């Protein structure tokens, strides 16, 4: 079933992609123009999508229950980390992110906090101080 759904999505996407590419036509310069290559890619993509609809592979084992839950939580943590990295600063944001992930993977909270502190301070020392890659200091260290 998953393959069939993906096949339909691919076919629809290929149609939209080709239609969108058609709007890039220009009447000067090289004969192929910016639309040519995308228009070349769309038909095989659409056909392969239809093939997957007709001849799907056996259903993969999707994760369920608490595994699915912790995967969803991981994605939420990562998105939050991406958004908070600049305003909060590297050290604090990383401390929170690593602590959350480590705790979720089965460590006790004090251990997870230790891991978070070690990772964030260690990475900051190594990359910002030693290698000179600027990381956002953020509120924790007064900007």
């Amino acid at each position: 079933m998953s393959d069939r759904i993906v096949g339909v999505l691919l076919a629809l996407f290929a149609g939209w992609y080709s239609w969108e590419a058609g709007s890039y036509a220009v009447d000067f310069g090289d004969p192929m123009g910016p639309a040519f290559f995308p228009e070349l890619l769309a038909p095989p993509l659409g056909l392969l999508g239809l093939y997957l609809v007709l001849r799907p592979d056996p259903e993969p084992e999707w994760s369920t229950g608490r595994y699915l839950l912790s995967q969803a939580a991981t994605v939420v943590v990562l998105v939050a980390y991406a958004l908070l990295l600049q305003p909060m600063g590297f050290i604090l944001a990383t401390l929170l992110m690593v602590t959350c992930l480590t705790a979720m993977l089965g460590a006790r909270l004090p251990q997870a906090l230790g891991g978070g502190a070690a990772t964030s301070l260690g990475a900051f020392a190594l990359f910002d101080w030693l290698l000179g890659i600027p990381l956002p200091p953020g509120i924790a260290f007064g900007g």
Partner: protein
Amino acid sequence: MDIIPSLANGFAVAAQPMNLLVAFIGCFVGTVIGALPGIGPVNGIAILIPLAFSLDLSPVSALILLTSVYYGSMFGGRIASILLNIPGDSSAVVTCIDGFPMAKKGRAADALAISAISSFFGGTLATVGLTVLAPSLAMAAIHFGPREYFALYVMAIIIVGGIATGNPAKTLVAGLLGLVIGTVGIDPATGIPRFTFGAYELYEGIDFVIVAIGLFAISEFLIYIEQRRTGPVEQVPVGRRTTALRRLTYPATSLRASLLGFVIGVLPGAGATLASFMGYALEKRVSDKENTFGKGDPRGVAAPEAADNAAAGGSLVPMLTLGVPGSGTTAIMLGMLVTLNVQPGPLLFQQQPDIVWGLVAALYVSNIILLILNIPLVGIFAKLLSVPPHYLMPGVVTVSFLGVYSVNQNSFDLLMMVGFGVFGYLLRKMSIPLVPVVLGIILGTPMEQSLRRALAASGGDVWTLFQSPLALGLHAVTAIIVAIAILRESRRRIGEAAATRGA
């Protein structure tokens, strides 16, 4: 082109203190990446690329860093195989078969030494092969025009991505998706923005580093959550060597396996993993007279390690001489070189010999560094394996974010990386391979350019693509391989259908 003076110049480049330092760091980091299960060479190298950019390394130093990491990860993969019976990366799977039984018998230190020596043998032999073969291949490739290059790119995306394994339709879908992602951004020929939806962050295209780190490293984390191991894994202690180092070299085995591995590495579509399997199979056929393979035969440890290191060296040949990568890892290196304004290919040998020969010389040096790191100092790496993964994996995520952040310093890139991580996870679950996606993104722009150049020269006649014998030959090879894959797939489906009816 004279090889000896060029190589001598190369050694002068490689001996610069900066390059020696970079090679040493690369070897060390590479061994760590290889040793830790869960970080393979592809995502390890992807994570390191943005760091190489932000350190402002020269192209030759950056290339030395990444190839040392690549060679190092081939050395490191065996450590976990031997001590934990868990391969450090996919090319070290076979090393478990005889490596772990050897360790169980108290010969762990011997097994580690044997595999380090044969890895050194394979890596060095491949570097010699690269030295000899690359210049002549580059000379031949100088006559390639846009048509031939277009044919080569098509071949690389289809074959390298692994059409030989799995459902060929899904491999093709993956390659096409990569090419589609590659079309996002301003069209270099006309300056028209394509598929950007007005988001100026997308005008320069989607950086392959973001895609590669998302697809490989972030998706690996999501997979890890699902396959989480319960309870600690038992680790065999390293112990002491039981015999002299001299008696732990297996020259005949290493030579056979290295030659095979190098050839497999040079050919597109088969990487270090296949090389290690075939190297083991060959050695078993030749030497397994007393049925000792699988029970801790040292030759079963030496053969796959020599083969996969030789294949890693071999896969650099097409990348450097043609600008067409022979594996996922070399594809990512190619992407980095292009970002640094270095275009690999035949002209590179003429215009920037310092880069090519500096790299080749540095590979000899790296092999020696790796041998030193991996025999007396192997205990340090073994210690690392006892760090529980729930501390390690979030650390890998941190370094991934840090690398992507250092490219443009914005959260848009980070969000895109997480998005590609989820996308990569879904692709992996549906057994759609990831390597063709990355290849498509990296090769998309040069592929489109060579296509448009070829068609512009012929006034838009599509048949021009097939009117050169070499291009036609390349297309024919691609077509045959695709046909074989389709045939095999349909036979598999028929077999499955019969099995379900029977049951």
